[in-house]
């Protein structure tokens, strides 16, 4: 499907193609899925603690909410999964539950060498491919089957967590829009939507913002704003926009507005966990912690803002290509651009393109006012 008739759909088409290029591919996803299913089987086979425990395993984070971005450079992708146990947790110490998971993994020939204990989770290192962080958690109450308490080893106590609740919150936000601009464009042409047009604008926006973050902080990775902060801000500020472009535009302007209000007060922006307001994801931005992270976040937003405003001007695709390369990286942009060109060339070969006789815009439709593009061979001497 060519989306050249309308300026906004054309840009959204390109943005969606870019996000599609940089998300985790299906083979990698399947490999991770089978890796975490294998953990489930291992726990089911346990003759100790897990034998009689009621538990389930599910992913959390970007895989859960459809906002994955391929890691850049040497970074590995991390899959976060939760072992959600239903039991009378107050009878046990957090260390006990943590150690039960560690025991099962360390007793397994398959996982022994991969185990790396972390503060709350146990990491399995699949060398050179990805790592999986397994978080053991106990359901806090019967009333809410999403809220967990998880062991915090540094704290020596339980701490609360709600990964599934967070996922629900984000998906609900994404669904504020019923049909995105791209879905509508496809529906109008009576064409089945490509897989890539089905993702919601908020999900695409988060992928793109994270991608831009990776580009922006490429030489300064330790100052990069975390994904959970960016995802949460995007979800909080999303207003149900239909296009990816407007979604990002609105998120930027809402951040700017909040920042200018706060600067006036001398306060900082707080990014609270939407399903547990006691948790401040942006805790590190405190004056006595790492306030430089906050300064970098503000610079990052200002830069994105300037570029995004440029995209609103009628600069032509050449200038826009430079802006988009700068924001999201040259290779992702070029792959997206190529997938568009490739589409045009395929349609051309099967004589399915025409031009609008008023504007010259290429289109797939062959309705009234459209002149078919006949078969031709570009020729010419090299000067």
């Amino acid at each position: 499907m060519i989306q050249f008739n309308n300026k906004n759909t054309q840009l959204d088409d390109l943005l969606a193609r870019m996000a599609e290029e940089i998300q985790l591919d299906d083979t990698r996803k399947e490999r991770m899925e089978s890796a975490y299913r294998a953990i489930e089987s291992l726990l089911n086979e346990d003759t100790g603690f897990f034998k009689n425990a009621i538990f389930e395993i599910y992913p959390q984070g970007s895989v859960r909410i459809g906002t994955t971005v391929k890691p850049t450079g040497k970074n590995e992708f991390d899959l976060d999964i939760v072992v959600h146990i239903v039991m009378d947790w107050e009878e046990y110490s957090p260390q006990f539950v943590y150690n039960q998971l560690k025991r099962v993994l360390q007793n397994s020939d398959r996982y022994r060498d991969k185990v790396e204990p972390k503060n709350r989770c146990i990491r399995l290192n699949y060398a050179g491919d990805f790592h999986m962080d397994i978080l053991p958690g106990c359901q806090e109450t019967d009333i809410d089957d999403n809220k967990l308490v998880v062991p915090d080893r540094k704290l020596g106590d339980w701490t609360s967590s709600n990964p599934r609740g967070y996922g629900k919150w984000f998906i609900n936000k994404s669904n504020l829009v019923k049909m995105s601009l791209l879905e509508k464009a496809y529906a109008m042409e009576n064409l089945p939507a490509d897989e890539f047009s089905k993702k919601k604008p908020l999900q695409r926006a988060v992928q793109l913002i994270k991608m831009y973050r990776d580009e922006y902080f490429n030489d300064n990775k330790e100052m990069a704003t975390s994904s959970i902060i960016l995802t949460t801000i995007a979800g909080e500020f999303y207003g149900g926009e239909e296009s990816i472009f407007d979604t990002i535009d609105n998120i930027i302007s809402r951040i700017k507005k909040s920042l200018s209000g706060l600067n006036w007060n001398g306060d900082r922006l707080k990014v609270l966990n939407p399903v547990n307001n006691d948790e401040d994801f942006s805790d590190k931005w405190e004056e006595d912690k790492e306030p430089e992270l906050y300064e970098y976040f503000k610079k990052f937003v200002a830069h994105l803002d300037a570029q995004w405003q440029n995209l609103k001007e009628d600069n032509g695709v050449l200038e826009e290509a430079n802006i988009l390369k700068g924001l999201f990286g040259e290779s992702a942009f070029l792959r997206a651009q190529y997938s568009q060109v490739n589409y045009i060339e395929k349609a051309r070969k099967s004589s399915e393109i025409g031009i609008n006789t008023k504007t010259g815009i290429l289109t797939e439709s062959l309705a009234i006012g459209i002149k078919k593009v006949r078969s031709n061979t570009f020729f010419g001497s090299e000067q």
Partner: protein
Amino acid sequence: MEVNSKKKYTLAEQFVALKKDYPEFKVRLEKNRVFCSGQLRPTARSLYYSFKLSYKVGTRPKVKITDPVLKRNFKNEKIPHVYPYDELCLYYPNYQEFNSEKLIADCIIPWTSLWLYHYENWHISGKWEGGGMHPKLKNR
């Protein structure tokens, strides 16, 4: 006269077809030439390109982009698929993709848009993805 021979279009017929199919373009008929000019953009986010076309029956239609001026890409490569003076090479004459039995309105104008699309992409990616042939390459 051969029964099967196709009819050649007269200049007047070329003029009328352009006028009718592209009401936004300026089309002018002179004694032995038809002239056409206007603006085209291959996609909604592209710039408008002004072009000028002139045609004399039995010759190659000359198409030139007048604004913005065509230029080399970021690799400093020469513009592909142009004749001298940057006139666009839109078809291979030996294949008879265009000849005096065909309408400029049907062939040359749509090909110009398609050429512009690939020209823009060539600037963006450094690659001409629109296919075609260069005579020099055959002689290598």
